[in-house]
């Protein structure tokens, strides 16, 4: 008789622990991600807003609240607008041809092919090459006097181009580097989406006499729209934050200028590089000013990504 209550308490105790285990432990399992994101992702982003309202430098002990003064100074700062222009220009030049090319490559790969794996691996090689390596390699290829690209161009009667010196030419050079690194990656993402499109659609279209290009336009692109929206948004957000390429290109193409100016005439300084210059590369280490620039950049990212979202969603089969 005396064993019964004992068994009951034990079962109740186990039940408690079991409930706790089933109800609460899932939260503990997902907690590391959320804690880390709050500490090192969300908090810095929000705190940037607070810093941007102050006269705040790395070196000074005290910070003075100055309201929106940093933003007012920024809007009158020619270098800020120059960086905004460069960001948009490089962004368009690198992203638009890249995505068109990526869709086309994915379309070419979306068949029964020999050497399928070989093609895919070679497409992704540039993406596993570090950005430092990419820029060092391409700075050499784009070299004014002995670069291979000028050498090839000379066959067609083009004189040696000083790629890093001009605004347009440096934007083209940087866009080529970005495209080289990302086209294959995006092609594989598109390919993944294309493989989910039912084969019968293509078979029916072939029977109806629709050619290759028509099939791409009328079947593939409408069917992979969600992926296209995703890729366009991610590419846009990435393009608005470009920093390593212009920073390294300025260093390794020679021509002077600091690490963060994007060429001696700021001809390829992007917004992110401008933020870095104000915060870390300037002798003033002006955190307040750099934070204000960060927030305006955030605004620009949201606007441009939003516009691109609307365009991609609206675009019918006739996009390409």
């Amino acid at each position, binding site marked *: 008789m005396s064993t019964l209550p004992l068994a009951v308490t034990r079962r109740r105790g186990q039940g408690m622990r079991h409930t706790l285990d089933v109800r609460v432990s899932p939260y503990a399992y997902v907690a590391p991600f959320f804690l880390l994101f709050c500490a090192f992702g969300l908090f810095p982003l929000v705190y940037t807003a607070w*810093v941007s309202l102050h006269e705040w430098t790395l070196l000074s002990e005290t910070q003075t609240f100055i309201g929106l003064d940093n933003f007012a100074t920024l809007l009158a700062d020619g270098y800020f607008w120059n960086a905004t222009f460069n960001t948009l220009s490089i962004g368009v030049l690198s992203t638009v041809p890249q995505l068109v090319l990526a869709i086309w*490559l994915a379309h070419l790969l979306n068949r029964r092919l020999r050497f399928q794996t070989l093609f895919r691996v070679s497409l992704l*090689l540039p993406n*596993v090459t*570090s950005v430092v390596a990419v820029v060092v390699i391409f700075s050499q*290829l784009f070299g004014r006097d002995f670069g291979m690209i000028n050498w090839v161009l000379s066959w067609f009667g083009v004189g040696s181009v000083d790629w890093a010196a001009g605004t347009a030419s440096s934007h083209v050079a940087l866009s080529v580097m970005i495209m080289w690194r990302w086209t294959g990656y995006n092609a594989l993402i598109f390919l993944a989406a294309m493989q989910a499109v039912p084969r019968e659609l293509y078979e029916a279209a072939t029977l109806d006499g629709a050619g290759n290009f028509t099939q791409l336009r009328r079947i593939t692109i409408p069917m992979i729209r969600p992926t296209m929206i995703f890729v366009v948004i*991610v590419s846009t*957000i990435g393009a608005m934050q470009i920093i390593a390429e212009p920073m390294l290109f300025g*260093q390794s193409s020679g021509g002077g200028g600091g690490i963060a100016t994007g060429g001696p005439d700021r001809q390829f300084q992007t917004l992110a590089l401008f933020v870095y210059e104000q915060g870390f590369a300037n002798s003033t280490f002006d955190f307040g000013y750099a934070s204000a620039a960060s927030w305006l950049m955030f605004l620009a990212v949201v606007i441009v990504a939003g516009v691109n979202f609307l365009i991609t969603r609206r675009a019918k089969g006739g996009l390409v």
Partner: protein
Amino acid sequence: MRLRYLTLTAVAFFSAFPLYYSVVVASRHNSALAEVPPPLLPGGNFFANVARVFDTVPFGLALLNSIIVAGSISIAVMFFSTLAGFAFAKLKFRGKNAMLVITVATMMVPAQLGIIPLYMLMVKLEWTGTNYALIVPALVNAFGVFFMTQYLSRALPTELLEAGRVDGCTTWGLFWHVVLPAARPAAAVLGMLTFMSAWNDYFWPLVVLSPDNPTVQVALSTLASGYVNDYVLGLAGTAIGTLPLVAVFALFGKQIIGGIMQGAVKG
């Protein structure tokens, strides 16, 4: 069909050629770069150039730092992502769907915009100049969580977990004895992807580390930023600092590409 192969071969060539050419330059002497036409075959100077790399920057230390940083990040990401992926894919809890949506949405947050407060935080923690500043913020990320959630909801049979419950396994026991073994193929791909991106990371290490205690990428950028353009030196550093990784990728390329494509299908 022939045109298709021709185009793809051309694209493959343009993907691989810059890498090949960097090896050509890295194995030459600087004077060879002035030749017209440019040299197209490797020369015999590679090891001499690599020795110069080690003389110019603390490259051994950089390699060690990069191995420690990329290694610890990969192991942590594999573990925490599998843990969270298990919860999202197979456990029931209130607010689960909303939390998963938030997780995916955080991938769109342009984290670079918080770089200044993040740096200030590292100063406060006294982590600047140390590997902690690189490792701790990267211990787990949204991509990894989402990736493992996708894989486990597809590949882990719920009956297996129910059987484990019947045998008296706690949730942790299920994770340890059932989920972890089942997650191994996807976790391996995730680990390789994470290792590569941690190894290649440049901007944050540049901001938070000092040039005398660098990672490989920071050391490479120092090499390339000399007053005189020493392309041979820069490309020799590139060859030993990044090409091994490219080679590993070429070896496991099939699995890694499968992983990228599976993780990407549902955007």
